[in-house]
């Protein structure tokens, strides 16, 4: 495999002295879709916040594109802007759909974004809703706007934190298809948190199981589901994990 895009070493995150994440080693490779699975509360979202540099690690180092960051130094804006997250809830601004989609570009000083906005809105099937107020969209539409708002930035890394939880099958299918396309055509690296193992199966190249803040096993998707190396992975895949 090529050089990793991210490499985490001895990364620990603690809140109020309580350690919630402890990752000895984890690599994310350019162009891959890595799925993070595991029960609720094991630290999946916390890991994504670290990968997006929204919070620093308490201990350890995160190597990103050859640069090593620990909790001390500020991550340069230019590096931070190579990564963005789509969360479970769309978190749209109280503005029009097109203003939401253009938001990230505006932050980067790009004022003339009309064509790009029209383009990504068409890709998520919302070309007719550009003028609509974002708060009047349905749940599925709002999440597609959130995806369009991330897509338009063409980030090196797209982090997805349970992006389709609570959505209807139509919207799940649509979002999965867009994600797959973006990964295939632009070689965009993605880390997908999901508690739907079928979604991991459908989208991911590799899957990692997290339990109690630790990575139990990371393996290519096929191996992960068919010949898991750890009995806990086998239990999780069978769906009879006790938690």
């Amino acid at each position, binding site marked *: 495999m090529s050089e990793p895009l991210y490499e985490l070493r001895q990364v620990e995150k603690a809140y109020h002295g309580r350690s919630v994440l402890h990752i000895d080693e984890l690599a994310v490779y350019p162009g891959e879709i890595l799925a993070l699975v595991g029960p609720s509360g094991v630290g999946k979202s916390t890991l994504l916040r670290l990968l*997006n540099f929204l919070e620093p690690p308490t201990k350890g180092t995160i190597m990103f594109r050859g640069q090593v960051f620990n909790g001390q130094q500020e991550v340069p804006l230019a590096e931070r802007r190579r990564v*963005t997250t789509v969360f479970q809830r769309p*978190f749209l601004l109280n503005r029009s759909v097109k203003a939401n989609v253009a938001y990230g570009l505006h932050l980067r000083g790009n004022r003339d974004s009309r064509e790009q906005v029209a383009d990504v809105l068409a890709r998520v099937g919302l070309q007719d809703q550009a003028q609509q107020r974002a708060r009047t969209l349905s749940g599925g539409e709002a999440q597609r706007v959130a995806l369009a708002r991330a897509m338009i930035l063409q980030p090196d890394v797209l982090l997805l934190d349970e992006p389709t939880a609570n959505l209807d099958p139509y919207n799940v299918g649509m979002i999965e298809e867009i994600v797959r396309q973006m990964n295939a055509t632009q070689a965009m690296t993605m880390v997908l948190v999901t508690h739907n193992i079928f979604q991991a199966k459908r989208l991911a190249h590799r899957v990692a199981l997290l339990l109690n803040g630790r990575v139990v096993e990371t393996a290519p998707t096929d191996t992960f589901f068919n010949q898991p190396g750890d009995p806990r992975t086998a239990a999780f895949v069978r769906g009879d994990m006790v938690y």
Partner: protein
Amino acid sequence: MEVVALSLRVSGTALLVSTVIGIPIGAFLGLRRFVGRPFVMALLYTAMGFPPVVVGLLVYLLLSRNGPLGQIESAWIPRLFTPEAMILAQSVIAVPLVAGFTMAAVLGVDPQLQQQIKSLGATPWQEMATTLSEARVGVIIAIVAALGRIAAEVGAVMLVGGNIDGRTRVLTTAVVLETRKGNFELAIALGIILIGIAFVVNTTMLILQRQVSK
């Protein structure tokens, strides 16, 4: 009618000053966590409820001949019994109101939305600007509340302005004077103008609020 003009000038300028100072303070307190923040917040809430006449007294003492600022000759320090002294007093009254209501509005913005804003590449300044824009209805309420307080305020402007005819007399102090003199009709007329101004201002703000919250 110069009374009306002066009223508008004094309260308008004070509102502008307190908006420019108060909104950043409120945004900062609402967004940033730092040591001593609860203490600053408690101070701010106390200042919001401060009786205007006490503020007037403090400004009076500050600016009077023997006060700490009374000695200094500077274009930035107003003299007692001038409109500028009244603007200062009203600004001191209004800043905590603007800052306090702005802080409350900013605190009402979902912290996870702020995380999303940062994740989309916002610098700390851009994060603050976007959060204020999300809290815009509350920020407008902050400005309206401050204007309501200072436009209706008598005690402080009376103390530091002196209610001098043609120089520092404003609507509220004129109402007091005319009532004392027994000119009830004039007092009532001035009062109606005062209410009329408040009505126009608040209606404008309401329309603005409906525009921005759509």
